[in-house]
C-alpha cells in the first residue's frame, strides 16, 4: 500500500510539470508584446513599461518561469492588473458558486446515470436498454450551455416555474438556492449522467461475462444478489474512474453554464477576463482547475485501491 501511494505521488510530478509549463506558456503565446496587448492600444509607453516590469517580462524566460513557479507554490498567482487585487483572492471569491453547481450536478448525474446504466445492462437488447442508450446519446449530443438555454426558455420564460437566471448562496436559504440552481444543475449534469450511464452499462455487461458470475450462479445465488453483490461491486471500479476523469470537464462545463444563468462564479470571471484580456486571472483559473483535476484523480486512484484488493495488496502474485 505504501509502495503504491509512493508510485502514485511520483506519477503526479511529470503531469504537474507539464501543467506548469503550459500554463506559464499561455502568457508567452501572445503575439507581440504581451503587456501592450493586455493594456490595449490606448496605453501609454510608460504604462506598458510599468506592466512589463511588474509582470517580470524583462527577465530571461527561464528565470521568469522559476520565479512564477516559486510564487505559485506559495499561493501567489500574481495581481490582476484590471481589478487590482491578488488573483488568489479573486479566484476564491468566485469559487463558491461554481463548486456548489458542480457538486449538485455531479450528485444528480450519479443518481440518474448509475441506475439507468444498471437497468440497461440487466435488460440488454430490450426496449428499456435502447431507451436508456438513446437518452444517453441525446445527453452526449446536447452541449450543456445549449441545454441550459432550452431549459431556461421552457421552464423559466414560457412556463415560469423556475427563475430564469441568478444565484442565491445556500447560506441565504437552501430552498431558494436550490430553486436557482435546479436548471443549471440539470443542464450541467445531463452529459455527465449520460457518460456515467454508458460506462455503467459497459462495465456491468463486462462483469456479466466473467467466470465468477457463473460461479455465483452455480452456487445457487439469487439473480438479484448476484447483480448487486457480485457484478456491481466489480463494475464500481471503472465507474468511479469515469466519474473522476470527467470531473474536470464538469467544473469547466460549470464555468460555461454559469455564463448562461448569470451565476457569479469562475465562469463569469473567465469570460470577463477574456474581454479585459486579463491573462493573469485566466492563467490562475486554468492552473487552479488543472491542478484540482490532477489531485481529484489522485484521490480517485487512492479510493480505487481501497475498493480493489488486487491493488491494495500490490506485490501479491497476480
Amino acid at each position, binding site marked *: 500500500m505504501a509502495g503504491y501511494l509512493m508510485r502514485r505521488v511520483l506519477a503526479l510530478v511529470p503531469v504537474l510539470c507539464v501543467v506548469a509549463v503550459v500554463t506559464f506558456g499561455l502568457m508567452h503565446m501572445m503575439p507581440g508584446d504581451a503587456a501592450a496587448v493586455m493594456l490595449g492600444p490606448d496605453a501609454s509607453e510608460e504604462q506598458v513599461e510599468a506592466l512589463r516590469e511588474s509582470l517580470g517580462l524583462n527577465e530571461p524566460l527561464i528565470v521568469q518561469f522559476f520565479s512564477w513557479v516559486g510564487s505559485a507554490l506559495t499561493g501567489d498567482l500574481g495581481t490582476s492588473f484590471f481589478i487590482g487585487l491578488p488573483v488568489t483572492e479573486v479566484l476564491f471569491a468566485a469559487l463558491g458558486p461554481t463548486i456548489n453547481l458542480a457538486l449538485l450536478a455531479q450528485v444528480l448525474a450519479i443518481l440518474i446515470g448509475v441506475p439507468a446504466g444498471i437497468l440497461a445492462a440487466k435488460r440488454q437488447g430490450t426496449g428499456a436498454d435502447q431507451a436508456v442508450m438513446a437518452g444517453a*446519446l441525446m445527453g452526449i449530443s446536447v452541449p450543456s*450551455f445549449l441545454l441550459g*438555454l432550452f431549459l*431556461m426558455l421552457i421552464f423559466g420564460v414560457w412556463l415560469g416555474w423556475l427563475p430564469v437566471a441568478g444565484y442565491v448562496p445556500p447560506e441565504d436559504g437552501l430552498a431558494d438556492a436550490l430553486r436557482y440552481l435546479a436548471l443549471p444543475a440539470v443542464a450541467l449534469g445531463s452529459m455527465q449522467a449520460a457518460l456515467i450511464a454508458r460506462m455503467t452499462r459497459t462495465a456491468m*455487461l463486462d462483469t456479466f461475462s466473467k467466470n465468477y458470475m457463473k460461479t455465483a450462479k452455480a452456487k445457487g445465488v439469487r*439473480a438479484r444478489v448476484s447483480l448487486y453483490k457480485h457484478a456491481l461491486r466489480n463494475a464500481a471500479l471503472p465507474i468511479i474512474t469515469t466519474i473522476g476523469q470527467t470531473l474536470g470537464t464538469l467544473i469547466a462545463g460549470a*464555468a*460555461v453554464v454559469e455564463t448562461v444563468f448569470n451565476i457569479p462564479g469562475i465562469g463569469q470571471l473567465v469570460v470577463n477576463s477574456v474581454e479585459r484580456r486579463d491573462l493573469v486571472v485566466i492563467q490562475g483559473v486554468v492552473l487552479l482547475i488543472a491542478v484540482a483535476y490532477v489531485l481529484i484523480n489522485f484521490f480517485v486512484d487512492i479510493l480505487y485501491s481501497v475498493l480493489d484488493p488486487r491493488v491494495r495488496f500490490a506485490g501479491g502474485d497476480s
Partner: protein
Amino acid sequence: MTHSTTTPHSARPDITVGSLNRIDKTRSRRSKFLRRFAAHKLAFTGGSILVIVTLVAIFGPMLTPSPFDVAGANRLQPPSLEHPFGTDNYGRDVLARVAEGARVSLFVGAFTAVCTAVLGCAVGLYAAYNRVADMILMRISDGLMAFPAILLAIAIMAALGQQTSNVIIALTIVFTPYVARIVRSSALVVREQTFVEALKAQGASRTRIIWINIAPNVVSPLIVQATFVFADSIITEAALSFLGAGVPPPAPSWGNMLLDGKNLIYTAWWMTVFPGVFIMSTILAINLLGDGLRDLLDPTYRSKTSGRKRKARKAARAAARQTAAHQSTASRPTTREGESS
C-alpha cells in the same frame, strides 16, 4: 497407429476452398462495407442528417438573403413566410445566418478533425515505436489532458486573440492528445506482432515500417476517433463563441448567435431555438455516425451493440423453426421467464 499421415480425404478440399475465400474477401471488402453501412440504420440516419446539414451550409447562403444585411425596420420579426426563422435585433435573417453559421461550424469542425487526425496519428505512431519518444510525448499529453478542453481552448484564445483560424489552432492543441493516445494503443498491439519483428530482421527502415506496415492498422480507430473530434470541435467552438472567445462577430457562428439569442430570450425565442436545434441535430448526427463506424470498423465493439443480439436471436429462432418444420421433429422451444442476468 501409423495410418494418419497421408489421407486423400482431408487436406485437398480444405486448401482450395480456403484460398478461394480469401481472394473473394479482399475483392468485395469495400462494397461489403458500404452494404453494411447502409444496413446499419443508426449510422445511415446520422450520415444522412450530416449530408443535409452540409447541403444547407453549401447552398443555403446562395438561396437566402445576405446574413449581414442590416435592416432596422425588420428588427425582431417572428418566423414568417418571408423570414422562416425570423429576424434578429439588427433585422438580419436568422435562416441566412444559421446557414452561414453551418459553414463556419462545419468548416472549423472538419478542419480541426483533419489537423488533429494527422498530428495525432504522427505523434501516436512515433510514440508507439520509440520508447524515449513515448515517455516524453505521453507525459506531455497527460499534462495537456489535465486541462478541461473548453478551459484550455478559452485560455489559448485569450492569448492568441479572437480569430477563426486561432479557434482551429486552439482546438487542435486541445484534442490532439486524445487521438494520439488511441493511435498509440492500437499501434502498440500491432508492433508486438511477429510480422513487424520479421520486417525489422529484414532490415526495413523505420519510416517504412511505421507508415507502410503499422499505419494501415490504426486507420479504423483513427477514423472513429476523428469523427468524435469533429463533434467535440463543433461543440467547443460553439461554446467558445457563446462565451465571446471564439468566432468574432459579425461573422455568424451557431455559438455567437446563441449569445445574441440569450440576451433577447424573453422577446425572440427563435434566435435561440433555431441555431440550437441545428447544433443539436448536427452533433447527434455525428455521434450516430461515429458509433456506427465504430460498430462497423472495430470488431471488439461489435458484440456490445444493443439490439443486435436480440435481433440475431429472433432470426435464429425463426431459422430453427423452419428447420424443425422441415425435419418434422418435435422441437420443444423452452420459454422460461424470470431470468434477469
